[in-house]
């Protein structure tokens, strides 16, 4: 699948970089040119995303097999052939997607597109803004398409700095604090990930043939070709094969304390991103201070990177540790759910409330994932998508009102329902979706997450399900405080949404409703992948892992 000799995944990932270069070359004054460049790039990404969606083979599973991955691109990137004592360092530029990542790629393309539109009224140093924005876009996309851990890590980190600046320069009054908090938190997580990655690297051996193809040890045992060489690897898929672990290496074996430690390090890295209680406190600050489009990106895509990381890396590579800590994981998910909901309830700042609701909603994802069965995983991945669209809507909604009223105090509003009917319509869809109303996409994912989790952890799920009451409580309460009741005198002049705002919210709203009624198109994408993943998690290591050591 190539366009002009370059694979489609590379296109979708690096288009923003191209856009960034264009933006940097444009003169500062041509603000509309800058905006349109970004928009065109984002739109092209959506087009490519649509293309991926159509051409994606629903029957391939992916997860831990290369043959199951699609749109593969694989080139040798770094290849240091040298001394015996280090071995050959071979890092691949390895892109590919399966059912989990394709959903995230679509989400990223979509949310980026929306966020560009929502950036239209940003005036301050527009050039820098879009340059950073597009770099961020590449980072996010890259995380979801890379299958090489090293590459994954690079993309993961590439996204940090633009985010820091986007919050720090274009944010609210306490932007510096929020930005540095975000940066430090995330970096703390990622250095731990780095260590785990290195530990994995030195634990996994594969054979490389002269053409650069990798072969698992099992394959090599069946019949080694000429000039095959044993190397360590960053290849995630190789890491998922327990047979590739070097006996006696750091992470070899099953249920060893080192494996738990590495899993824990990865977990913290991802948990900070999700964020899972108690690593969540950067989120409210970052959200509150970030400008609207960045909040949208943050909630819509960035948080997903955490859960995606768990699904893509932690679970398949450490199924044993995952199983061992599944209950704890579920517990944290439940705490996030209930805690996030309760704290949200006590907020008076609109944006902060939504930020905490994100904690709660992402908790559902975590709970669903911890279930280790298809229903729960499906719910979780679908919830990732839905939370992306729904929370993006919610933040856009806050942005709309903030642009007009310059305040986000929940208690300062009221009665906007009549004043801004279109706005009210969008808001109704978003809020009802957030509280899990059937017919809207959030419901299905929450339902399956909980149903799946219930199979594995009855008591925890029951506790977690309390949030369906709490969420209804605070969401409707917000609705009441902002939209119902009499309209305060000072807001008599608020205008309804303009065409641009309506377009964004309508697009997302339609998606939310469509997938709420008929989720099959998106569930079909991930189904076989998640079945495979569930099987991997349930049955864990194939015989090679237990007997080979």
């Amino acid at each position, binding site marked *: 699948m190539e366009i002009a000799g370059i694979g489609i995944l590379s296109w979708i990932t690096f288009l923003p970089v191209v856009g960034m270069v264009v933006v940097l070359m444009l003169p500062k004054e041509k603000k509309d040119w800058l905006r349109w460049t970004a928009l065109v790039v984002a739109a092209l990404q959506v087009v490519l995303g649509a293309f991926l969606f159509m051409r994606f083979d629903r029957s391939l599973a992916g997860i831990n097999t290369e043959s199951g991955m699609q749109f593969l691109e694989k080139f040798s990137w770094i290849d240091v052939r040298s001394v015996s004592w280090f071995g050959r360092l071979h890092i691949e530029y390895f892109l590919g997607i399966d059912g989990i990542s394709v959903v995230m790629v679509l989400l990223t393309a979509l949310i980026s597109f929306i966020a560009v539109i929502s950036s239209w009224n940003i005036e301050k140093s527009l050039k820098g803004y879009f340059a950073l924005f597009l770099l961020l876009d590449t980072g996010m996309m890259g995380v979801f398409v890379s299958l090489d851990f090293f590459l994954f890590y690079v993309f993961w980190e590439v996204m940090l700095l633009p985010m820091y600046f986007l919050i720090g320069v274009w944010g609210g009054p306490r932007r510096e604090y929020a930005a540095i908090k975000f940066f430090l938190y995330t970096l703390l997580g990622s250095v731990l990930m780095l260590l785990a990655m290195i530990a994995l690297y030195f634990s996994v051996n594969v054979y490389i043939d002269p053409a650069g193809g990798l072969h698992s040890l099992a394959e090599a045992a069946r019949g080694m070709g000429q000039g095959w060489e044993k190397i360590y690897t960053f290849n995630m898929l190789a890491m998922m094969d327990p047979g590739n672990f070097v006996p006696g290496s750091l992470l070899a074996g099953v249920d060893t304390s080192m494996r738990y430690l590495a899993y824990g390090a990865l977990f913290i890295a991802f948990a900070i991103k999700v964020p899972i209680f108690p690593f969540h406190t950067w989120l409210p600050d970052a959200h509150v201070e970030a400008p609207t489009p960045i909040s949208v990106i943050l909630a819509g895509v960035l948080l997903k990177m955490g859960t995606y990381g768990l699904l893509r890396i932690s679970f398949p590579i450490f199924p044993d540790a995952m199983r061992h800590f599944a209950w704890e994981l579920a517990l944290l998910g439940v705490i996030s759910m209930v805690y996030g909901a309760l704290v949200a309830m006590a907020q008076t700042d609109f944006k902060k409330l939504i930020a905490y609701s994100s904690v709660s909603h992402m908790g559902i994802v975590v709970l669903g994932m911890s279930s280790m069965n298809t229903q729960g995983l499906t719910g979780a991945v679908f919830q990732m998508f839905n939370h992306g669209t729904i929370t993006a809507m919610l933040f856009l909604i806050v942005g709309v009102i903030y642009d007009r009223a310059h305040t986000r105090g929940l208690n300062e509003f009221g009665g906007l329902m009549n004043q801004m009917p279109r706005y009210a319509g969008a808001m109704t869809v978003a809020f009802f979706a957030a509280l899990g109303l*059937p017919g809207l996409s959030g419901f299905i994912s929450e339902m399956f997450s909980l149903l799946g989790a*219930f199979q594995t952890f009855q008591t925890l799920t029951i506790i977690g399900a309390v949030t369906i009451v709490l969420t209804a409580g605070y969401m409707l309460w917000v609705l009441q405080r902002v939209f119902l009741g009499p309209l305060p005198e000072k807001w008599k002049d608020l205008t309804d949404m303009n065409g641009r705002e309506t377009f964004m919210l309508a697009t997302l709203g339609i998606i939310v409703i469509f997938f709420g009624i008929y989720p099959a198109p998106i569930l079909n994408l991930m189904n076989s992948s998640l079945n495979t993943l569930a099987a991997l998690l349930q049955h864990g290591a194939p015989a090679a892992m237990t007997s080979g050591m």
Partner: protein
Amino acid sequence: MAQDTLLTVALAVLLLPLAAFTVMIFAGKRLPRQGDWLSTSAIAAALILAGTVLYGKLTLYHADTLALNFTWIDFHDVPGLGPLRIVLGIALDNLTAIMLVVVTLISTLVHLFSIGYMGGDIRYSRYFAYLGLFSFSMLVIVLANNLFLLYVGWELVGICSYLLIGHWYEKKSASNAAIKAFVVNRVGDFGFFVGIAILFMTFHTFSLSEIFDGIRGGHLPFGSDWWLTVSGVLLFCGAVGKSAQFPLHVWLPDAMEGPTPVSALIHAATMVAAGVYLVARLFPIMTADALLVIAYIGAITAFIAATIAIAQNDIKKVLAYSTISQLGYMIMALGAGAYTAGFFHLVTHAMFKAGLFLGSGSVIHAMHNALHHADDHETDPQDIRNMGGLRAKMPVTFWTFVVFTLAISGVPLTSGFLSKDEILAGTLAFGSLTGHVIIPLTGFLVAGLTAFYMFRLVILTFLGEHKDANRITHVHESGLVMTLPLLVLAALSVFIFYSVDPSGFTPGWIARAVERPESTVPLRLAAPSAGVFEEVLGHVHLTAMLLSLSVAGLGMLAAFATYYWKKISADAVARALAPVHAFLLNKWYFDELYQAVVVNGVLGLAALLRWVDTWIVDGAVNGAGRVTRGVAFVSGKFDTYVVDGLVNFSAYLSGFFGLVLRKFQTGRVQTYVLFAVLGVMVFYFIFRLV
């Protein structure tokens, strides 16, 4: 008519209101007359189709269950389970067919009534749109053959209820009531959901018939009898919420903040009956213990609500509590095993209670106009103490109201007599079978109470003298669009539509169409079978009828004695029993209790956690932070000091150490030299020890 045709028509019944909703929500305002005709005709068409379906079903496929399924989500080959599909679909049995007609009928009448009642409302088209959505959602519940769709419809009717209760959201009380309704319902749904989760986990399907088959095959949740009962009770929780059963009944009276036709449709006839319908649907999986719980919950609800109704003065509140009480009746009936009677009462109650609400709506409408005319904004148009003597001014309303009242009180020749009588007989039979005599006792007591408070309502509203002669002159009978529905409902409150035999001894067509389904639970857990139950029922039927007639008569007599003939002074009684009266007037203090315990508890917890989040989780720094910064409290700028993070904490710590360490950098090189030498010696001694 072929099966497929029948199902297609049923599907059309389902989709017509949805189509109306879609058009109305987007284009309603731009249509002529804001599209009320569109909604009304859509639902009327649905009614006709529903009638066809009912006829076709009863005549052609009396004993069959027709189903239409489609695969909604295909999980393919799920590890550990094999192929898993989420199959959704609709099923058409007699119960469904009847419900279809009931729902569309009431809905059509309410639409009609609303044209008059809601005329001139600022959100007129929106109102009709929501009615359409509600009808659709309710039909989803009715038609669903699986728990998933049931739950979907369940939530959707909840949200419609929310939207419609909050229709006049400028009033804080209205939006509060809307939130309360939804959230309280969600509490019930929580149990419902867990119940579904248990069943799904056990059977990996949402389909009711498959679940029944599974249980019949001896496959129990967690392999335990107890869990079967629990899942039944949990599913029943949904009904507790939706049908406003004790202890979640508190939302329904508040829901009267919505427009009266909405109360009639949603909060009297259909949605609240969905709980009853749910229990009926799930009857086969209920164990004897679960049924007992259900019966008791129903009885308690019926009793509490009836007592409260006596002391209420708001016309709609009285009706609301009456609804709760009657719903308790139905639930109790189902719990007792009087399946058919319970369902039958659902149908008849739908007619006369909708009628009562619409009648009250007519009264309120008239009162409202009169007060408006008199430029009186103080007087409550819904307070029955401000009414009286409306009979002459509103004859149609009055006479239909009387019919409805007779029906609810169970006076012979009305539909209510038929259904209520059967319920009481059923409870009596249950009492004699199981020894739980409190159930029938409550049943009879509540029957008496019902007659009493309903007649109290009629007398205070329509009979006697009006309080304000000036005002009464401005009271007028409502227009045809409002009275017509009343007349229709009044007609439908007569026995003849349900059974040719007014005595109730020969079962009517509904009773024949709807038979108690076989229980699927293992025999050791099941309630006495239908056959056994019927037999006992036959023995006690006459007794029950006589008893019910006498208590109803007593109730009526008491009402007349107190409020019409004034032989007994209501005030004196109230004074004599002041604590009881206050207790009843304040609805057993449920709201206060919930406010104090649940609402404040949750909000308090939320506030506490917010505090914890900013202080402990996010602000572990502050213990230390305060020491250094001194007087965070005094400064009043609490937040600036408070909102720091764990990151700040570690940053603080590292900063602190940095601060201390940099003090070593004195600028005096000789000190550095000394440190270096000291360093050497320290290293030496440390490693010497190691």
